[in-house]
């Protein structure tokens, strides 16, 4: 269970939000909404422990995430608005590196399969610098297929740059994770229906 209490975010001397709190049970989707600059990304980074809140606390199963360290990071998948893929490595190499680091049981064959599922069968061996924006996003999203065991997914604009078919595919992957008792926190500016046993919305900004 993920609990946030009285979170406050200050960036560059300006307060973006204060007193933000929520409780997310397994199987809950939290959609974070708000205008540009309202602090959505900052909130997501706080949930990952990348950004320290100016006030408030974030608890994972009752323990502060700052004291949990690696145990918490093992439960977490974060997809930032940057794809975190290396231009000079192929899609396959990128996926193998990130999944080896995450301690997923990954083999080249399995990685190839999951890239194929996201429509990247023909370009798994190309350096990602020659791929389109949407294809790069798909490479980044392919990680999700290996992270069912992670109980918390934090996704910053997962659907950006994707075509409609890929959006449906990713929405289905997220729905399956929620159905399996995972927690998913995400932001999106697109109208995407994500099927969830429970869903909550959080609106940042005035």
């Amino acid at each position: 269970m993920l609990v946030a209490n009285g979170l406050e975010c200050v960036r560059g001397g300006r307060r973006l939000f204060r007193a933000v709190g929520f409780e997310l049970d397994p199987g809950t989707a939290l959609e974070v909404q708000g205008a540009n600059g309202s602090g959505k990304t900052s909130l997501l980074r706080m949930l990952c422990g990348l950004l320290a809140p100016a006030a408030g606390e974030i608890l994972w199963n009752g323990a502060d995430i700052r004291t949990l360290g690696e145990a918490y990071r093992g439960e977490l998948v974060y997809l930032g608005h940057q794809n975190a893929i290396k231009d000079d490595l192929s899609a396959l190499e990128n996926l193998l590196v990130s999944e080896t680091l995450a301690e997923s049981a990954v083999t080249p064959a399995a990685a190839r399969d999951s890239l194929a599922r996201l429509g990247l069968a023909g370009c798994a061996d190309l350096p990602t610098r020659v791929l389109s924006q949407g294809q790069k996003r798909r490479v980044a999203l392919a990680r999700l297929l290996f992270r069912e065991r992670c109980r918390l997914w934090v996704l910053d604009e997962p659907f950006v740059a994707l075509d409609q078919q890929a959006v449906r595919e990713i929405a289905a992957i997220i729905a399956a994770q929620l159905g399996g008792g995972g927690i998913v926190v995400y932001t999106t500016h697109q109208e995407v229906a994500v099927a969830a046993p429970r869903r909550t919305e959080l609106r940042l900004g005035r």
Partner: protein
Amino acid sequence: MSASAPLAAFACVLRRDLLLALRRRSDVATTLFFFVIVVTLFPLGVGPEMSLLRTMAPGVLWVAALLASMLALGRLFAGDYADGTLEQLVLAPHPLGLLVGAKIAAHWLVTGLPLVLLAPLLGLAFDMRAEALGTLTLSLLLGTPTLGLIGAIGAALTLGLRGAGLLLSLLVLPLYIPVLIFGAGAVEAVAGGLGPGAHLSVLGALLVLALFFAPWAAALALRISLE
């Protein structure tokens, strides 16, 4: 988590960074060329007086190696920072110091080790004697990893700042002084007929100290820079 997991993560980052360096060979070449050019400028500027060149050689080679490795520091974390992979490294379920250590090791293998191997060749141009050349290589072998380790802390601290390059050199060069003194000192001691043992021991001690502390300090600095 199995016992070999941290090792696998270390190997994974090391392999990735070496592979990236292999795909972008020009980055490595610029550091080497810089080293060669700086070293060859001195005989051109000072004139072809052999005894003078021989006296200057240890200092010149060491200062050039120091500047070259500092020049390469900017690339240590900048690429990963720009494309978001650094965030993923920080969020990986492993001690960040270990992963940073792997990055520093890869960085030294592609920028430090070639300097070490090239230095004796350049030393020949300064008419250095054989034992002095041997000591030069050994002192660089012990010293350049320390430069990389100390520099990593500076690179992590200045990550994402405007004018990071200049700030980095101001931050890191003073910390390089002990390595320079004992590194060049070892070669001068041999040239003067003394043993290099004491100097090399100090260099070794500095390396052990840096190996122990620098990756964790750099990891801490990275977390701050990412906020």
